[in-house]
């Protein structure tokens, strides 16, 4: 069974490390990271901001930030096509995230970089990035981003894997 990304085990490990580094960057600079649902939410990808260079987007919402993390880990690092939203890494939202990747059925299998969708059915309302240990990285408000318990809100719907 191939992985969701088609990457080898080693490359998946590297990709997940990049996700962790990216979340760390964003949390360390939370005061400079603003919540936006405008076009600038895609600046992380459109400006080519690289985790490996210590760069991070100053604007984003939940889905654009999650997509930027995976763009770094999958596309920039390993030239993986847009397996997250299916838009050639140009756009996306919870509705497209929910129709890509592979569903993780059991909580015990949740891994770093999996995306957690919240809300009552498609297209869902919010997405966060799994960090392991029952925690997620979430950028859902101007006060964020935050590291939170995966069930910090009561409407967790599904978990999907892209790495």
């Amino acid at each position, binding site marked *: 069974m191939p992985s969701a990304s088609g990457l080898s085990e080693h490359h998946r490990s590297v990709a997940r490390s990049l996700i962790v580094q990216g979340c760390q960057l964003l949390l360390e600079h939370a005061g400079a990271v603003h919540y936006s649902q405008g076009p600038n939410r895609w600046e992380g990808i459109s400006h080519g901001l690289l985790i490996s260079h210590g760069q991070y987007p100053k604007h984003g919402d939940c889905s654009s930030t999650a997509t930027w993390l995976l763009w770094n880990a999958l596309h920039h690092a390993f030239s993986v096509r847009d397996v997250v939203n299916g838009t050639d890494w140009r756009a996306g939202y919870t509705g497209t995230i929910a129709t890509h990747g592979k569903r993780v059925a059991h909580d015990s299998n949740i891994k770093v970089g999996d995306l957690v969708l919240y809300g009552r059915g498609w297209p869902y*309302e*919010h997405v966060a990035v799994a960090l392991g240990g029952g925690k997620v990285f979430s950028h859902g408000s101007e006060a964020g981003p935050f590291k*939170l318990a995966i069930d910090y809100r009561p409407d967790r719907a599904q978990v999907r894997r892209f790495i």
Partner: protein
Amino acid sequence: MTDEPRDDDELAPDEPGDPDALSGFKSAAPEDVPPDEGDAGEAGHHAVR
């Protein structure tokens, strides 16, 4: 949960569940977390760059 193949199990053997990957960062307390503002939605989806 039943509308798609349970494909995560096949991935599990070589990738055990991860421990807390950001243990150095304190989790936010629930009372400190404002409600999520929601996703930009399909309009945001089409507002490319």
